[in-house]
């Protein structure tokens, strides 16, 4: 009976993994299929779809824009998240912390397309173009709650007495942050940054109303591409993204002992 339960549990887990990873594996497999349509039966193995990416400059520039937007938005988000989480976690801080944390997480509740549209309307109401920085701002607003959650978790395990120890030893508040608080929160901050970066990098709906040809992000370029045709090159692009995100996650886990995925 006990063994039967164990077997059933194992089967359940296997199905779960298959359900989660299956589509991904299918996409990766497709990227090596020489057939020109998508989906199609397997005809062999080729790397030609990967070399085809190199021939399309808009994908490379899109990746560049996405990386820059993701880096800037994540840096901004982590900075804001750290300051907010720090204020929310400090002993002897103001009341209403629960309400404040919920308010800060509220961008998660707004559909991303709406956030994108709202940013566009706000910019036009102020009579300024959204441009590159509008894109960065929208991404920062959207990813900040994820960083906030991670930093709050990190701070929950932080002994604020070490800050007092630092101050009693002669460190001012800046020295205390530099020497004690930030180094001890580094895993949360790095994890927050990486998580935000990935979320921003692959995000499509936020960018829908905010990009111009010069600021088209990679997901926008991909979206435009599959509007006209579907071939396995798009699967190759997706596979590269998955590979990079996966590598980042593994490196974090290995060298910083930060878990993005449990």
């Amino acid at each position: 009976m006990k063994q039967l339960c164990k077997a059933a549990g194992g089967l359940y887990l296997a199905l779960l993994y298959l359900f989660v990873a299956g589509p991904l594996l299918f996409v990766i497999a497709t990227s090596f299929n020489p057939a020109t349509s998508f989906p199609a039966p397997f005809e062999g193995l080729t790397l030609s779809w990967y070399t085809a990416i190199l021939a399309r400059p808009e994908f490379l520039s899109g990746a560049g824009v996405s990386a820059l937007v993701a880096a800037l938005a994540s840096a901004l988000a982590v900075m804001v998240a750290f300051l907010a989480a720090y204020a929310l976690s400090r002993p002897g801080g103001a009341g209403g912390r629960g309400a404040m944390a919920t308010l800060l997480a509220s961008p998660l509740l707004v559909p991303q397309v709406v956030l994108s549209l709202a940013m566009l309307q706000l910019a036009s109401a102020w009579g300024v173009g959204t441009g590159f920085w509008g894109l960065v701002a929208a991404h920062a607003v959207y990813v900040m709650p994820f960083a906030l959650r991670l930093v709050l978790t990190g701070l929950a395990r932080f002994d604020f007495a070490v800050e007092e120890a630092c101050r009693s030893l002669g460190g001012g508040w800046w020295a205390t942050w530099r020497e004690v608080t930030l180094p001890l929160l580094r895993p949360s901050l790095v994890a927050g940054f990486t998580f935000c970066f990935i979320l921003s990098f692959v995000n499509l709906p936020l960018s829908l109303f905010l990009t111009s040809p010069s600021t088209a992000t990679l997901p926008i370029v991909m979206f435009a591409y599959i509007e006209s045709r579907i071939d396995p090159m798009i699967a190759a692009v997706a596979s590269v993204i998955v590979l990079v995100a996966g590598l980042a996650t593994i490196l974090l886990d290995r060298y910083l002992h930060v878990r993005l995925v449990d």
Partner: protein
Amino acid sequence: MPELVLSHITRRFSGHTAVDDLSLTVRDGEFVCLLGPSGCGKTTTLRIIAGFERADAGRLTLDGTDITHAPPEKRDIGLVFQSYALFPHKTVAENIGFGLKMRRRPRAEIARAVEEALALVRLDGLGGRYPRALSGGQQQRVALARALAIRPRLLLMDEPLSNLDAQLREEMRVEIRRIQQQLGITAILVTHDQSEALAMADRVAVMAHGRLQQMAEPAAIYEAPATAFVGGFIGQVNTLEGQVEQAGAEGAVLSLPGGTRLAGQGEGLSAGSAARALVKQERLTLSRTEPAGLPNRFPCRVTERTYLGGSIAYRCEAANLSLTALLPNHPLFERFSPGDEGWIGFSAADCAIFPC
């Protein structure tokens, strides 16, 4: 020259007063223990001295300079935390040298001071380790060394021994006292453990409800408590409530409900008012025969015996009162069993009466 002076320090939190008009002086080179139950304001007092809590009223001077509003990093006060609060990402040596690094001392001087501090707390050779690789007792020593390395004007310790096991705690009491004496440093230790306070301090300051109850040498705190709170808080005590029948310089008489009368001593008593007698358990005698010399003596029956190792506690029921006597576990002292009949007694000097 007085070193640290607190005058009329008050700290209110929403609704309650944590520290209430506290004035005390810690002399140069003195070791003072702030003792009291949890919530008595002792930790808040320590945090006010360290600069992490502001005083709503009152003044704080160290070495003649007013530090009431000085930020913690400008006070030159060494602090040992209950959780030790070592920097987990820094080595033992970096922890100890941190205060000097903040003071921008030359590297060679820091290295020398770290070596000295390690030797002082007997951790020579462990400078390269990280705190997590040390035992609780060793972490405690690092915390002490780190606080002392800056050559502070004052050393503050917040329940530093409460996370150690019993044997290590006894050892560290002696150790901290030795280091304090060796350096001649002025020190304040906060504790709720009375034996710790009595064993370590030059003077003990007992606090309750944010107020200073008594500040005196350990023997005076134990044997001549100034208030009913101190008398009841320190040691194991029998408490008896009644009415003052007679009060004067030569002694007082307390009448208990049921008519039993106790001879004792007390000040500020007036006949007819309610009062409380406190008798330390080890000052009671328990014998088979009537103890002729003692003014307070009652025939009793032993109802309960608790074996404590070094001593034995007997719970005894006399006519109208129930008392506990703590007798040494020694062949010279008679043993009793529950059900035994005997006499319980104590002198008038050991019966302290306080108005209540």
